[in-house]
């Protein structure tokens, strides 16, 4: 049992590192990640659970971190966008977003990358429709969905990434 209190001592493992902090019970998980821990890769777009910019993977499940309280994450293992690259090497999805111009302003990108990472883990070769359904919870206001879908599809197909002129090609 976690004892009834307006503050909670929580332990959360994020991208392999364990953090122990005392938080206010009312603190949103996204504020804990960004403000308390300084991991600002996870964005806040709407803070009403509509835009998906704050998407993270918690205990293997894609969730919106503005729709959880920090104490709910006590004991959880979390992955954020900072955890996708290893030793300075971008993940295949991150490379693909770069190569296919899968972003314009970049604000939604951390959430898109987490949603796409989750999608491909659970469905390594999704159809275009499955990709579009997979990122339905993530809003891009630059209307960049076409290139985002292309970026994800390229990784799913294991296609050769276009490293040449920077112009996205059909995949």
């Amino acid at each position, binding site marked *: *049992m*976690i*004892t*009834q*209190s*307006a503050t*909670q001592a929580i332990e959360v493992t994020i991208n392999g590192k364990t953090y122990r902090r005392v938080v*206010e*019970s*009312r*603190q*949103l998980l996204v*504020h804990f990640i960004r403000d308390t821990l300084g991991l600002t890769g996870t964005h806040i777009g709407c*803070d*009403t*659970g509509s835009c*998906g910019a704050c*998407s993270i993977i918690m205990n293997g*499940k*894609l*969730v*919106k971190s*503005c*729709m*959880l*309280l920090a*104490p*709910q994450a*006590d004991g959880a293992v979390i992955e954020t966008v900072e955890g996708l690259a290893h030793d300075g090497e971008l993940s295949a999805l991150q490379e693909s977003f770069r190569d296919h111009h899968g972003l314009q302003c970049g604000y939604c990108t951390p959430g898109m990358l987490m*949603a796409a990472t*989750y*999608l491909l883990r659970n469905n390594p070769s999704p159809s275009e429709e499955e990709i579009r*359904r*997979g990122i*339905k*919870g*993530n809003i891009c206001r630059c209307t960049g969905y076409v290139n985002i879908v292309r970026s994800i599809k390229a990784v799913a197909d294991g296609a050769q990434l276009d490293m040449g002129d920077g112009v996205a090609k059909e995949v």
Partner: protein
Amino acid sequence: MLLKSVEYVRPDSVAQAIEILNSNEGAALLAGGQSLVNILKHRVASVDVLVDIATLEELRFVESRPDGSIEIGACITYDELDHSELIHSSHEMIAWVASHIEDQQIRNRGTIGGNCCLSDPTNNFPPLLVAMDATMNIQSSSGMRQVRAEEFFKGYLMTAIQPGEILKSITVPPVPADVGIGYVSLSVGEDSKAIVRSSAWVKLNGVVQEARVVLARVSPIPVRYQPMEEALRGSSATPEDIARAASVIGSDFEPVADSHGSSEYRREMARVVAKRAVLEAVEKVRGEGGSK
């Protein structure tokens, strides 16, 4: 901070959760939180203690019963329903509805119990569970009691749940081969909040033996439209029969009006979605091997 100060507690059992509810007047249950957390951000509900029941094993199971019915723990998420082989094999429509709620993030957190206990008229499960004649199993310090889904939803954000009670599970009757279930929504975008919705349960043996037609988003709670059910009974359930039955949704029927649709518009659309829901149910019985 968006939320006002609130205490958080994570009990180890349903009994402990009930104890906490009974000793804190301002306590509220927190399951998936996909509606409640937003309500708290807007400070429209006054909650002093959040009792987190999302991970209680007692509320997280899906089991079939010898009679073919299925019991679903209140804290099973939409995504878990969609990935349950048991649900797919015996009650396919529950999995289908779960897989068409909003988006993946919400399906990973939102629970069937929360969907019912909030009693928001846009929620997906209430009309389906009324159509399927589900039973809500409610636990309190004095034991268990059962309430039929039709009696469970009382009003906008109101259910039969009393202070100190917890919805423990939902029992859904079996779906035999001569029964079909339909579920049709009119919404602005795919899988988004419905403007009008209908779920139909039809028992067909040459002619319609029995039908339940539920309309949702036309009033604060899902309602069975009995004149249409009566019009269907005994008919051969041809598309013409079904269209005729839907046309009994008459001018005496006055759906709620709001920014998404006038009462007249909702009445017209109720005829359309109810007709389609019954058609879907009938096609499932007449199609290959019946439906779930």
